[in-house]
């Protein structure tokens, strides 16, 4: 019997093999609703693929690398990217390829297709995990369609799915993914409808865009929105969107195009709106529970793309913030402009203003007011950073996925090489340091002293501390220019034809901007943080001079505000028990290379001054203000994990090995520990921790013990 089936052949008993999304559409078909022609690939095919290719074992290895509870979002994304690449680079076994191709030839000889995920357990009446897995729209050509099926399978392990791994019960042995293949319906208008509004049970909601519904779902097109009375179908509230574009299939992809003059005004006519509203109420009636559906109007016909029970995700679930990190290209371009023209200059301007205030001249009351103002500004800009700057990092991910999809490299992080080499502010500052080091002769009456004072203030060091560091800098510690990068860039360019290139170029540009800003925006924020710290130091100085009860509350606030951007350190890693030692630790590979050297643990900015050339830098997280130390390091070990952390970005520029994601790194490792680090695999070894072993017993002693045992 054929495993790949059209919807008409499926029944409720097929749910575990075909997933909720597919079965819901099968049920709609059975009840006479108009849905796109569809074909369903069961979970068995996914399992066969994993079994026949050995991919299951590799997935187990990848997922077993580190406890998920200790991973930050950057690490989850790294893991998901590595897994995705395993699927991209592992072809279908020939028998499975033939089976799927034959079924597709039979049902969809030539048309463009939509290839959707349909994971068992994804949509049910009790839980909804919509948006965790991927779907692909307007896929043309058999080869591309077969690849899209593997990409849908890979999305069973997407970063978002990994975040919900407990609810989904994600396990290599038990989890699987069915795939729904549909004809592409290019409607004039599309949207979603909810039979019950979340905040008013007497109303329903309709949202609509022009063009493909994907524009609404992925957030690239803002929808018109109606709240409608469920009984009278009268519009209670209408909110017009400010959309100037629609998403359409074009050149084998989907693209945003400007609306024509005739397409201005409300997206739906009153009569079309009423049909959609009646449709979603009919669905609720048929399925005996509130429904949400996706629909499209084509040639005067309303077609249902999807329907499922309305479910809510608890608003307090902080993982929702992570979903907010997935941004479209359009949104990223807006973010880039905002960060470059508003946020970074804004932070720097305010920091510069604070820097001009001579704090020692202020009265206690004025000082308190001044420090409060600084704290208030810092909170505002940290929130802005969290809202706009962190999501900008998605540009790196967007490019990474685009690059891997197109070129399918063996190394899933090869794309980072193309992002390197920009004018990172940290590198510019390091060059300034190197230049200063080459001119300074170590004398305190040198003409370079003014420059040293200025740079030391910028870095938060004392001038003599900076002086000691400068004396260690040599010409060798320069960012590495890679021939490999030019080769990769050439290959990237050649991969696309003239029609495809503008988009490829645009995504590369946003990837580069994102990579550069990931470091640069932190430097701006750090200037502000330093000014708050300067205020705090003055408050503490006055407290030391005499009791100042009025400063007590302020000092509390200053302490509360600290580490606001840092992720919590995992507990239980402290090395209190001298008998327990680490011998080897596994983290994430963040910059390739091997190094053996002694460790220097950096716990505060003051520790930086003790750093010696050739040591391995060990820290909780490399702050952008610390990156000037990187050229001196033989390697880097950091608690925070992932390829996108600042330490990793700078380490790659200098070709220094870096291992990230070592839980409790700064607690487990001590100054002077001899370490070997492997930045290819993400390993840290402590070769000197073997300790002393007991000497061998003499043969006659052994003999005596045996004799004693026999006598007893």
């Amino acid at each position: 019997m054929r495993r790949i089936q059209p919807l008409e052949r499926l029944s409720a008993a097929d749910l575990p093999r075909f997933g909720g999304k597919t079965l819901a559409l099968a049920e709609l078909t059975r009840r006479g609703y108009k849905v796109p022609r569809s074909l369903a690939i069961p979970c068995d095919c996914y399992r066969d693929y994993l079994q026949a290719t050995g991919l299951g074992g590799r997935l187990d290895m990848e997922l077993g690398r580190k406890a998920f509870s200790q991973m930050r979002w950057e690490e989850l994304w790294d893991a998901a990217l590595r897994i995705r690449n395993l699927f991209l680079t592992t072809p279908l076994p020939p028998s499975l390829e033939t089976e799927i191709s034959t079924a597709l030839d039979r049902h969809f000889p030539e048309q463009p297709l939509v290839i959707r995920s349909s994971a068992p357990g994804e949509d049910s009446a009790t839980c909804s995990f919509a948006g965790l897995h991927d779907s692909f729209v307007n896929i043309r050509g058999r080869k591309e369609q077969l690849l899209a099926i593997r990409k849908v399978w890979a999305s069973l392990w997407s970063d978002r799915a990994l975040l919900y791994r407990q609810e989904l019960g994600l396990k290599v042995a038990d989890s699987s993914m069915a795939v729904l293949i549909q004809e592409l319906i290019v409607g004039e208008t599309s949207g979603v409808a909810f039979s019950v509004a979340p905040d008013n049970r007497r109303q329903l909601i309709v949202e609509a865009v022009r063009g493909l519904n994907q524009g609404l779902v992925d957030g690239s097109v803002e929808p018109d929105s109606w709240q409608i009375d469920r009984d009278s179908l009268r519009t209670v509230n209408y909110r017009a969107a400010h959309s100037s574009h629609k998403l359409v299939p074009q050149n084998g992809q989907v693209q945003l195009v400007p609306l024509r003059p005739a397409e201005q005004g409300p997206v739906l006519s009153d009569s079309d709106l009423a049909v959609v509203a009646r449709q979603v109420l009919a669905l609720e009636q048929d399925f005996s529970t509130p429904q949400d559906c996706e629909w499209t109007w084509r040639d005067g016909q309303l077609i249902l793309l999807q329907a499922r029970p309305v479910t809510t995700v608890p608003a307090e679930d902080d993982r929702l913030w992570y979903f907010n990190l997935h941004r479209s290209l359009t949104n990223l371009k807006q973010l880039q402009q905002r960060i470059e023209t508003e946020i970074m200059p804004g932070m720097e301007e305010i920091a510069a203003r604070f820097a001009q205030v001579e704090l020692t001249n202020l009265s206690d009351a004025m000082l308190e007011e001044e420090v409060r103002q600084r704290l208030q500004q810092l909170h505002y800009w940290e929130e802005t950073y969290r809202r706009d700057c962190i999501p900008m990092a998605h540009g790196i991910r967007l490019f990474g996925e685009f690059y891997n999809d197109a070129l399918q490299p063996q190394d899933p992080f090869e794309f980072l090489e193309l992002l390197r080499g920009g004018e990172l502010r940290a590198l510019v500052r390091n060059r300034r340091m190197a230049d200063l080091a080459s001119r300074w002769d170590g004398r305190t009456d040198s003409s370079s002293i003014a420059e040293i004072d200025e740079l030391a203030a910028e870095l938060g060091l004392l001038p003599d501390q900076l002086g000691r560091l400068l004396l260690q800098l040599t010409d060798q510690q320069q960012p590495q220019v890679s021939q490999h990068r030019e080769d990769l860039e050439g290959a990237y360019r050649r991969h696309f034809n003239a029609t495809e290139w503008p988009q490829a170029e645009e995504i590369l540009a946003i990837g580069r901007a994102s990579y550069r800003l990931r470091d640069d925006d932190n430097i701006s924020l750090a200037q502000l943080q330093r000014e708050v710290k300067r205020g705090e130091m003055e408050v503490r100085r006055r407290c030391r001079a005499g009791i100042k009860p009025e400063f007590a509350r302020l000092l509390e606030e200053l302490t509360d505000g600290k580490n606001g951007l840092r992720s919590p350190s995992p507990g239980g890693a402290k090395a209190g028990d001298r008998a327990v030692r680490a011998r080897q630790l596994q983290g994430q590979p963040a910059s390739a290379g091997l190094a053996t050297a002694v460790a220097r643990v950096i716990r505060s900015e003051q520790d930086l001054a003790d750093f010696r050339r050739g040591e391995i830098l060990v820290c909780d997280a490399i702050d952008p203000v610390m990156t000037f130390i990187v050229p001196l390091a033989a390697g880097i070990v950091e608690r925070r994990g992932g390829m996108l952390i600042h330490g990793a970005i700078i380490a790659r520029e200098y070709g220094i090995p870096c291992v990230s994601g070592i839980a409790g790194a700064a607690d487990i490792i001590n100054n002077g520990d001899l370490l070997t680090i492997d930045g290819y695999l993400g390993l840290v070894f402590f070769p000197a921790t073997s300790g002393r072993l007991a000497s061998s017993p003499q043969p006659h002693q052994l003999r005596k013990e045996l004799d004693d045992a026999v006598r007893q």
Partner: protein
Amino acid sequence: MDSLRQQINDLLSNQNLGVLATSAKGHPYTSLVGFVVTDQLDELLFATHRATRKFGYLQEDARVSLLIDTRSNQSADFREAVALSAVGTAREVPPEQQERLLQLFLARHPYLAEFVRSPGCALCLIKVQRYSLVQRFQDVLELDFDAPHSTP
């Protein structure tokens, strides 16, 4: 192939992991390793990082033993489990044999590809001198590759 060779071959073909014993300065040290055997049974391959203790020990003393067994952590193991100890010397695979033996190793352990191909990893070859096969608790048979009649 005689029955002992056949039995050894079956055991080595069905098991993925073995316990490698190394020693240095008179102290033994054991590690769990993934292995694969070559066609003639006289060579075993395993991979390790160069920064591990076992690799350090191998640099001091090339003599090793590898235990492969069929135990399942049940009391019946005392009767039914079969244990095979290989004794020999280990060295890093020379460059001219690297690709061929790497392919052999990866055919058995494809999920170790990233590890084995990374610069910090050493693919090692044990030249086996003798196998000791223990079954039914105390029956021990040996296959000695150094003996004049041992050529397959």
